[in-house]
């Protein structure tokens, strides 16, 4: 791409504007990023919980996703502790949803006739969430830019209707559009007056350096284990109360409606994040790993089940 071509490429934030507007115009509710640490946009309740049950939804949001073990102190041009996904949930997926997706690439300024696009099999699985789906990784000139999944199960439950999930890897697409080798060279924004670029590195490098150091070198292992136990205990406590509330003979509608399943889910997500930190810190032996993952699975799948029950109960009461 020529120098002038580079200037025309969208900045990181313009890309986000374009994609959000694109999906809003196709009926998506735009949500803000979820404010609890998650490893992927899928873990936000806007995906994980909303795909459960019969209620249709179209929603899109950018989700910063933290993966402590992937941190590289800001020294690797292609790996991040925290990257940004644009998550689109279409429940149920519209007809010819791949075509709609390809239109979104066109909206980003990608001329499909000038590129090599392939949908290659890639099935998604999140065992801790009892969730899986089938789909593709979308390859654009040899780069994986999107993960496309038809959810089949979540929280160990079959989904009906299913949801289509489109996860754009924003940094990769920006690298592609702007033709830069390092994530840190991505132009995040340009000053409208001077045209001066603010790069991804300007905005985020410090964070990468410090959080890599925190995850690998500083995080206090015994505190992390304590956090994990506290979050877990509280989450289990809520799940136990949920049984009482939902299992009551004739529960008051307001009690059911106000039962904080969403709070329980946040606690489960906290556990997942603390687990990832412990893992990055090298504090979890392979033998322990399976056991701790099973504990977190109990929380997340437990929450999903309660959430599904609660939805049915509330819908039943208002019917």
């Amino acid at each position: 791409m020529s120098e002038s071509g580079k200037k025309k490429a969208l900045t990181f934030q313009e890309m986000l504007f374009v994609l959000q507007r694109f999906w809003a115009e196709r009926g998506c509710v735009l949500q803000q990023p979820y404010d609890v640490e998650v490893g992927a946009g899928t873990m936000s309740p806007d995906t994980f919980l909303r795909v459960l049950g019969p209620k249709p939804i179209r929603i899109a949001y950018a989700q910063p996703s933290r993966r402590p073990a992937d941190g590289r102190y800001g020294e690797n041009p292609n790996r991040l502790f925290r990257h940004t996904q644009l998550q689109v949930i279409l429940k149920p997926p519209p007809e010819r949803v791949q075509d709609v997706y390809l239109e979104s690439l066109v909206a980003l300024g990608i001329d499909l006739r000038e590129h090599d696009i392939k949908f290659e099999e890639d099935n998604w699985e999140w065992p801790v969430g009892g969730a899986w789906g089938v789909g593709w990784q979308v390859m654009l000139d040899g780069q994986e830019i999107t993960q496309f999944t038809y959810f089949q199960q979540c929280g160990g439950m079959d989904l009906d209707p299913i949801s289509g999930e489109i996860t754009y890897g924003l940094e990769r697409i920006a690298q592609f559009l702007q033709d830069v080798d390092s994530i840190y060279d991505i132009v995040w924004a340009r000053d409208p007056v001077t045209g001066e670029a603010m790069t991804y590195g300007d905005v985020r490098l410090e964070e990468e350096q410090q959080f890599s150091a925190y995850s690998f070198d500083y995080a206090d292992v015994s505190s992390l284990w304590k956090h994990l136990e506290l979050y877990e205990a509280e989450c289990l406590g809520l799940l136990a109360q949920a049984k009482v509330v939902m299992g009551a003979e004739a529960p008051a509608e307001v009690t059911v409606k106000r039962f904080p399943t969403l709070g329980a889910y946040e606690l489960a997500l906290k556990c997942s994040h603390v687990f990832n930190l412990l893992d990055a810190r090298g504090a979890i032996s392979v033998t322990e790993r399976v056991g701790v993952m099973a504990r977190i699975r109990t929380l997340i799948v437990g929450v999903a089940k309660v959430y599904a029950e609660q939805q049915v109960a509330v819908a039943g009461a208002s019917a």
Partner: protein
Amino acid sequence: MADLLFEIGLEEMPARMIAAAQAELLRRTLALLGAERLLPAGFDPLTDAESFSTPRRLAVRVRGVLARQQDVSEEVVGPAVKIAYKDGAATPAAEAFARKSGVAVADLKTVTTPKGEYLAATSVKTGRGAAEVIAELLPKELAAIYWAKTMYWRAGKPERFVRPVLWMLCLLGENVVPVSFGGRTAAPATLGHRVLSSGEEFEVVAPETYEAQLEGEYVLVDVEARRQIIRKALDHVTREVPGARWREDEALVDQVTHLTEWPTVLRGGFEAEYLALPEEVLVTVMRDHQKYFAVEDAAGKLAPHFLAVLNISTDEHSAGIIRQGNERVLRARFNDARFFWEFDQRVSLTERVKLLENVTFQKDLGSYAAKSERVRVLAAKLAEVANGRGAGLDAAAVDDAARLAKTDLTTELVKEFTELQGVIGGLYARSQGVSATVCDAIYDQYLPASASDRLPRSVEGALLGLADRMDTIAGMFGLGMEPTGSKDPFALRRAANAVVRILAESGLPLGLNDLMVATGAGSVVEKKVLAFFGERVEFYLRENRGQAYDVVKAVMSPGWDDVRDVAVRSEAVSEVRGGADFIAISAAFKRIKNILQQAATKNEVMPTAVSDTLLVQAEERELAMRSAVVSGEAEDLRRAGNYRSALQAIASLRPQVDGFFETVMVMAPEAELRGNRLALLMRIAADFSRIADFSEIVTAG
């Protein structure tokens, strides 16, 4: 008669599943048409039926499908005449039968059966039109296609299929057959290439114009044509670099054939500095992660080029853009690999031995450190046995290799490229100054990974591979985690197949029993493991050596501890089995076996030795004498490993065997004679079954 064309359009199918599904759709369509009597006389599936596929479609075309089924008249038997007529008049029973058969009472006939006289009617089943039959039955065949992984997509989950159905096209001649499946009903229309075509559905005029019309919309539906185009384009593009060749990779050609509808090939390059990285790593990145073909120079060394197979046609402008994109991705991946390669080298393999304590091999079998220690002990024992038989192994090198073999599991590069375990260890060992014998053994430890894969280069590598796998197999069996049915989560069958191949082909003087003893497993486990290996040896003889079932059974019978030997015996038996004498001898041995089995069930008394004085008939004396001579000859030849001549010697016994069975009655009324004859047969069976149990050989007729 008309040609049938059916196409189902799908969102991109997984490349790995397409070929089998295409074949299955053809098979099912032909079976349906055959069973429904819609194929013309003289129909030849090889010339009159075709199938097609791309990532987005499966299609079949069948020539000369009959317009309708022929009417079939069939005779139906009804009630007995004495019930059907009373005093010469038809009863309600007769009327009901006539109604049911669609004929008038007057047209009913009488048939005579062993049970008496009955009414009968010739009922004519009117043939149905082909379109009606296909529309009704094809959806069931579609639903039954096997996919390794399927999904739901419609509300209410009415069906599972590999991916959502986008369209269907079904023509019988020029008429549409309204096949319905997955929420779609067939139309006379299809879609072209996702990007290159207009994107609009277009009508297919007739079954025979299918390929040409799709080609006009940038889709090559003929898989073999696509494969050839890709191969030619790979050649063509490589020729731009003098002296260069692309690395042949049939599996990759197959994969990209199933990933494209309109393939073109693009050559890209990378900075020569990356060639400092091991070729194995570069090729893995290109092949497994990017689906690129590697290019080598005239000397066979990796050259700084790659070939990408695209699913689009390009001009100079777009080729430039696409090349640049692919090059950037590859550069990023090579950079990652280089980072890991350099990072890993900061900690030597020797220092990594300790780190293996943190890597679990299996919950109950401990860490990889524990496994490595067990493998060292096992390998040392085996090396001693083999060296006692003159193998000339470098036992110290085997020990070093066993100690370091698993340390690469702690490296970042192996975490990134798990398929390169072992290889990476070998490469790191080399760059850390470890001896070549040790490096090669580490490098080759997982070979052979498949039936067509090569064996370790050295006996040291072969021995390490044996010890590692035997430790896993004995350990897993000890925990009761043996494979059952189609379940083999720890791939123990593959491990055992590799053990068998190494024993048969590496030249190491070891038998299965030596391996078992060295593991120190208890007798219960040992028995189970050996039975499991029995199946693997049979599998090896059949699949790798191409031996027939009966030959395999025959040569397994005298024993299979020495896998090399059982393989040689199977080849000798296969060579001679066609001879007339050998066939006769095989039949005779079957007879001998039956006689002895029956005698055993009747508790017949069988002396341990044959008494000459009780041999009263000339033919039995002849057989006793001649078999004793031949047995000596055959045994000498067998010991010398000359199985073929030994078998021929045994076959030469045919006249005496034939003579015996023609004239001598084994089960004579006199107990003494009977016992003696059984003893003779027993001796013959024992003497001549040391190479193979001939009674297992299947003889025609």
